[in-house]
């Protein structure tokens, strides 16, 4: 693997360690994602996927601030996060979003009292009018069912529809690096493959770099370019999708294939 080779790294995480009080959640993780690719992060519950996603998107800073105000759990981290070569470790989540790092959070987190259309319009907070309109059309072409349901309240959508809405809402924020935290969580197999295809399409058509985390790798394995496997907060395995695929132990141990 030669880093100079055609794709630049858009995201580099170096020696990241994260503690909740005294419990270690992320144990010395270093990883990098190439521009324009889909990187998969796999691991069971408590492997550190969400903590990693929250640290990259900056949500962890907000969590830390809130815990401190409340006098709750102490959250500490060490290490460095670089985005396009720039150190963003100490930027607020809103500043990171402005730079193009957008997280589509676990369990969708739809604005349940707003209609589907309003969810998307809130997503366009950072976009100008022209971008917002263009992206809205794109989201509706990607997920035609959202167009039909656009005046329904978010809370009344099905799980699959909510996930489509969450991805569409994140797209509205004009990401350059899209973080999808367990986008296929709790979906029916047919919806799973439909969404996996949509994610691939987004990556191909818009050139947005995508990092996605999943517990169960099989449905997304065909769409990723590079993968990391986490266990107990550390990386136990990494490689290009094809390399991982060639390793039968990997497949049985981590991907249930």
């Amino acid at each position, binding site marked *: 693997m030669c880093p100079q080779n055609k794709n630049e790294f858009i995201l580099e995480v170096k020696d990241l360690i994260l503690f909740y009080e005294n419990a270690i959640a992320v144990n010395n993780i270093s990883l990098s994602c190439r521009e324009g690719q889909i990187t998969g992060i796999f691991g069971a519950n408590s492997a550190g996927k969400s903590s990693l996603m929250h640290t990259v*998107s*900056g*949500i962890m800073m*907000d969590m830390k601030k*809130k815990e401190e*105000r*409340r006098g709750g759990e102490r959250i500490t981290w060490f290490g460095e996060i670089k985005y396009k070569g720039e150190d963003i470790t100490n930027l*607020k*989540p*809103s500043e990171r*979003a*402005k730079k193009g790092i*957008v*997280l*589509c*959070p676990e369990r969708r*987190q*739809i*604005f*349940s*009292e*707003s209609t589907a259309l*309003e969810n998307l*319009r*809130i*997503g366009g*907070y*950072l976009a100008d009018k022209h971008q917002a309109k263009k992206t809205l059309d794109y989201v509706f072409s990607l997920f035609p069912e959202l167009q039909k349901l656009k005046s329904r309240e978010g809370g009344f959508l099905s799980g699959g529809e909510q996930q489509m809405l969450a991805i569409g*809402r*994140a797209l*509205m*924020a004009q990401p350059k690096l899209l973080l999808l935290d367990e986008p296929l969580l709790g979906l029916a197999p047919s919806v799973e493959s439909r969404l996996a295809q949509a994610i691939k399409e987004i990556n191909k058509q818009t050139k947005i770099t995508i990092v996605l985390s999943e517990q169960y790798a099989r449905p997304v394995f065909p769409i990723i370019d590079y993968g990391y496997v986490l266990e107990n907060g550390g990386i136990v395995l990494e490689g290009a999708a094809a390399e991982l695929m060639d390793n039968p132990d990997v497949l049985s141990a981590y991907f249930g294939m």
Partner: protein
Amino acid sequence: MELIIYGLVNSISLILMSIGFALAYGVSRVPNFAHGALYILTGYMTWVFLNQFGLPYLLSIILALIVIAVIGYLLYQVILIRVRGMPISEIIASFGVGLAILEFLRWTGLRGMAHMLPLFVKGRVYIFSVPIDYQRLIIIGAGIAVLTLLWMFTTYTKTGLSLKAIAQNERAALTLGIDSDRAAAVAVSLGAVLAGLAGVLLLPLGNIVVETGYEVLVFAIAVSVCGGLGSWKGAVLASLLIGFAQTLTVTYLASHYHFVVALLVIIVVLIAKPSGLYGKQKELEERV
């Protein structure tokens, strides 16, 4: 007929008094217990600009509203931001600020019945042979205008949408580039302006007295609790409910019961539906 018209005036007064409180709570989850103090402070500032600086009435009102917006913004950025997320501390801190403002005003000389704001337009008209003065008509118009503008603000503008987003799901809003502290500061500031606007509209009907500040706070809490904390729809409905209940009591019993009615309605609603008319049980559970 008289009952309907004056009930409506009373209800809209309650909406004006409480909508700012409901808005600030809905967005920042900060119960701003300085609300009543901001109401009186705006009225008093208008009075000072008008009588001591000799400015025109309209200019005095606009100036007072600008100052109160800044005060609301600072109230969040300097004080409330430090206790955000801790309900009891929020209440104590904001109530302390309100107490300080009101008692400071009393100390500087806001005592007795000497302070009055003039009516916007003198005179009265007859609607269905019920006499009603122009000030009260203006209040009805202003109440409807405020609700319409607020609805448009939160439906069509980016800032309004961002407030709505923070109120519903703060973390999701953060991922989309919305700064939650900024949104909450805007909400508390806007809430202060709405409290002030209610003050300059309603105070010409009576005197500017410190006690009204405490009364307005109780009404705002009554309406918000009854309607469901943070819900605007609920706040409007609750205002109508309490407003008409008060008017009925004043007409058929005695006028000094109108304060009791507000508190009685809270108790009845909380027994029948503890989360308020439009409130969410879940939110209450999370908070309490």
